[in-house]
């Protein structure tokens, strides 16, 4: 770069700087707003930095799996030995056709008894 180049480049630089000074008020105002939004976002991130563990979304599926497994183990060992009440209920709920039978169980028992007597 010679002296001539320097003066040529400086002239362009002056013009470019003039261009930035001539930005319309609306654009300048938007730039200011964008700057403040970026700084606010940075502060929010700084505030939550200590809670990284809790807001790292990728951890939640793992935690949910571990939690479910722990709950299953807890329920299994809480059930008295030899008693499995939930499984009976599941049978009832799964077979919709038999629901009436279970509800009218006493009636059918009486009917069977009556037929046997008769």
């Amino acid at each position, binding site marked *: 770069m010679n002296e001539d180049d320097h003066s*040529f480049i400086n002239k*362009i630089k002056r013009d*470019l700087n003039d*261009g*930035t000074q001539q930005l319309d008020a609306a*654009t300048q105002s938007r*730039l200011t707003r964008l*700057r403040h939004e970026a700084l606010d976002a940075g*502060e929010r991130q700084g505030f939550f930095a200590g809670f990284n563990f809790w807001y790292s979304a990728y951890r939640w599926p793992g935690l949910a799996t571990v939690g479910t497994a722990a709950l299953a183990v807890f329920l299994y060992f809480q059930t008295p030995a030899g008693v499995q009440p939930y499984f009976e209920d599941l049978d009832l709920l799964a077979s919709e056709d038999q629901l009436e039978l279970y509800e009218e169980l006493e009636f059918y028992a009486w009917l069977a008894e009556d037929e046997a007597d008769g």
Partner: protein
Amino acid sequence: MRNHRPALDEFLASVERRAFRMAQFATGQTEEALDIVQDTMLVLVRRYGDKPEAEWKPLFFRILQNHIRDWYRRRTVRNRWHSFWSGWQSADDNEDPIAQLPDPQGTHPEKQTLATDSLATVEAAVKQLPLRQQQAFFMRAWEELSVSETAITMQCSEGTVKTHYSRAVHTLRNLLKDHES
């Protein structure tokens, strides 16, 4: 980041106008330029706000140039799909005759350089530079970054920076022959 806020605010205020103009030169669109500046500010504040202040400037312009390059890539892909799609349609199918009329406010780049207004002339010439030359010129001449800083900003070798910058100055000299005198 909280302690850095006043310094970051001052730094961003000092570069935001030039960053916007650089993005505007590159994209030719105000809204796109504002989006690019916004993304650049966010990345700098979130990822590099804790870095030493001396590193902010090259980092900021590196992020800016990356976003501008991404914008170019997206536009290239979009244009490719657009031309592929329009190839399936007949030429006179959806041709809007009004869209074919010349824009009364638009000016051909070559005619723009002949404009009497100094600023408009320089801006028109800078817009004609290829993107990499434009970036090298902005970083070296406008931001006064060193060759090595510009190389970091543009993610290329120092030799490449020198080549792009030299070609940019040469092209501008040719385009602004009348403007120099």
